[in-house]
């Protein structure tokens, strides 16, 4: 494992807080969204189970990740996991696609016991679900961790975040090694699973332009090894380094124009590259000005589902975005003046 960049590790730990008490028998969330399966738009059931959470976030954690807020540090018993599963089954019934998240790694056996995972998988298979998406850190991607007796086709999503060791070390605080990532991608695909990579857009400390360049380079690097790539614009989650920097106005969430730019630069890659910005259009998520947030998010959604292109989008704020991108490296951080995206016109409304 590469050496830690100590100041950032300290900063991550300082920013964290102990998660509040949560009911153990209820999942964190469940909803239905549109997804694409074999070139066809289908409904997907999405579920976030409450578990002990990511082992890395217990040890150190990443600078942008606030998912530990939803976890139970003492762990969740098998009975409670089964109770949660009973409550989410109705959402998954009749769907072809399921996404099972855990605020951690689904195939970490110390987080989600293998027996429970095996049950759940065969249950979904019986329900007629064709494909299931789970998330994991690369260190748990070994065949024995997902050798289920009976399961739908597996899609393992891995947070690559960036292919640059400097960004991983000094901005994200993730000890992922590129050769290891490549190895586990091959391992997963050789064992019948598909791999999806998450790439961050504008991790903390990076400026808008550095963020765009890093995301594009990471996507180019990752493309040969994975089946699809999701660009995740960094959003401000509670009790994280990102939130601290955001409060201090040393970093702001990326523009939606940057998302569009990255996707357009990745158009010729051999894999699907798309983005579904968490918290898009809000101050804590990727956003533009008030006038075009909705429009651009709609276009991104259509692009994600293969229903439309990203060309021809326009708004007055786009020239502002260009001006900022051009000078952003000189600003030496990810900030911009308050109210810039709307042209400093917004007064206080109440």
């Amino acid at each position, binding site marked *: 494992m590469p050496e830690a960049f100590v100041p950032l590790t300290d*900063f991550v730990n300082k920013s964290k807080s102990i998660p509040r008490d949560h009911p153990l028998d209820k999942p964190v969330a469940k909803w239905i969204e549109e997804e694409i399966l074999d070139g066809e738009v289908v409904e997907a059931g999405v579920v976030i189970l409450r578990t002990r959470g990511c082992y890395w976030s217990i040890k150190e954690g990443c600078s942008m990740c606030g998912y530990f807020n939803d976890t139970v540090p003492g762990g969740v018993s098998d009975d409670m996991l089964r109770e949660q599963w009973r409550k989410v089954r109705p959402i998954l019934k009749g769907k072809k696609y399921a996404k099972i998240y855990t605020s951690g790694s689904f195939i970490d056996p110390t987080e989600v016991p293998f027996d429970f995972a095996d049950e759940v998988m065969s249950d979904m298979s019986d329900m007629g679900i064709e494909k299931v998406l789970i998330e994991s850190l690369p260190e748990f991607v070994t065949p024995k961790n997902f050798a289920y007796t009976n399961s739908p086709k597996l899609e393992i999503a891995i947070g690559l975040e960036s292919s640059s060791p400097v960004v991983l*070390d000094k901005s994200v605080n993730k000890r992922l090694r590129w050769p290891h990532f490549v190895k586990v991608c091959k391992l997963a695909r050789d064992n019948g699973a598909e791999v999806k990579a998450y790439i961050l857009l504008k991790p903390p400390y990076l400026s808008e332009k550095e963020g765009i360049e890093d995301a594009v380079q990471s996507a180019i690097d990752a493309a040969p090894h994975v089946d699809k790539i999701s660009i995740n614009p960094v959003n401000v989650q509670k009790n994280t380094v990102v939130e601290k920097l955001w409060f201090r106005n040393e970093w702001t969430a990326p523009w939606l124009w940057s998302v569009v730019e990255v996707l357009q630069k990745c158009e010729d890659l051999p894999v699907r590259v798309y983005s579904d910005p968490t918290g898009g259009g809000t101050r804590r998520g990727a956003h533009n000005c008030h006038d075009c947030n909705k429009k651009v998010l709609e276009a991104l959604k259509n692009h994600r589902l293969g229903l439309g292109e990203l060309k021809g989008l326009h708004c007055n704020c786009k020239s502002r975005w260009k001006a900022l991108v051009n*000078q952003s490296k000189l600003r030496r951080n990810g900030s911009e003046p308050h109210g810039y995206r709307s042209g400093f016109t917004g007064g206080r409304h109440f």
Partner: protein
Amino acid sequence: MEPIGHEGLGRLLKLEDNLQTPHVVFSHSDLEESKDLESGGTITIGKKFNLPPSPLGLDSEKSPYLQLSENIAVIDNAYSIQPKKLVEIAKEFRLEAGYSRLIYAPAVEPSQMPILAYLGVDIFDDLNVELRSSTGWVLESGEWIKQNKQIEDLFSHNREELNRWISRIRNAISNGKLRELVELTSLHNPRVSQILYYSTSLLIEKGARVHSKIRSNDLSLNHPAILDFQDRLSNYEPPAKGMVLLILPCSARKPYFKSSSHKRFFNALREVDNYLALHVVSVTSPLGLVPRELEFCYPAAHYDIAVTGQWNASEIEMLRSQLAKLNLKQNYTKAIVHAGSSSKIMTNLIKELGIDVVDTRVEKPSSYEGLEILQNIARMSLSDVPLLNTKDRAKGEATGLAKFQYGDNSNFLVKSEISGRMPYKLRCGDLAAMSPVVGGFGLTLKGGIEYSSQGGPTIIAETFKLIGDLFAVGVKSYEGSWNIGDQVVIKQNGTVTGVGIAKMMPEEMIAMKRGIAVEVRHHA
């Protein structure tokens, strides 16, 4: 490098002929991007120098605060670091940077340049000026203004102005008047005034003692709108007799009830039985005291001030006279003070007026512990206070507000059927409803009829169909008097056909042939 002048921690350095600090670099000609994340790019100040790499992965609140290259020390985030922290960092500037490095503060607003120069920053840039220019703002003496006239190539216009602004800072240092320039920029800029406030002891300890003449003044608390607000409070009555007065701190967000701290107060208090019998009054400078139902009234929702937690003698005197206007002994049974750093002063002032007062002694009023203490004290204080129901409370609030706004003419509102509750739903029958734009009760057309018959200011307009605003050319005569910004009633042919906000003085409407006389809010 030759120092030719000092003031505070700032210095006027001669670098080359025609090149002195404080100096501004222009991004398009003097700054070069870094090649990768681990290098720093270059800066040209006469000669080209390397910049240190940007502070990846570092916590800006931890030392070392400056990023160093051979010739340059960069203070990143100077525009956003908390004022108190910034002064702490300024204390370390020369320890970290030494005297032979130039200190560069990137992406700073022009209005903050004088104070930063005063604390020792040598180099500024035009990055924020470029962004402002791209949105059409014009720089004028360090401030941003909107101008109707189109300026060709606004960015170079603003760059020239920035150059003049920096040379004004240099001149100020050489004339020993930088302090004056800093005071000038701090007057209407809470951030600068906070930095200035906190830097006093550092300047006494380490600042250059230049014997320039001090031309002092005492500007404060004399804004006409503020004096008017304070004056009107003398006729004010709380919603009901025998309530418990609760003093809370003010908030940065206006009106206060929309701030996160006041929402937390409210959420904690509404769990207490009979919480409606608590009368919330916020303590603030320069307004003094703002009862909850007056929070919409100008200027209670329209001011901003540097928060220092310190009250000076004239402010305390002002608070004393405002408290006296509330008639504590007659109006309230007791008082609770939960105002953080202002608690002690308020408690003492209330004691002087001879009613029982409890100080919660909480340093952070909206913290979890603070709220718990407030809740318990409120519960105890309210246990022997007669029950106040929603309806009576709303009636009392509406009465207080109507009197505050309409003075002697408020009777028609007080007598109407009052419903709803503060803040947004409160209304006086079909005569008036809450309006943030008006800042209190905005009259409806029916309300306008009543107001006019009670002697409210009325404008007689020519006969035509009123559809939009009323222009000066359509004004025939007027009754009563008003100031610009007051609510007025429009009459045509003897009947009321509109209500709105006056945009001209009475005689001015008659004299002018063009321009908006009344911004109409409702018309027939």
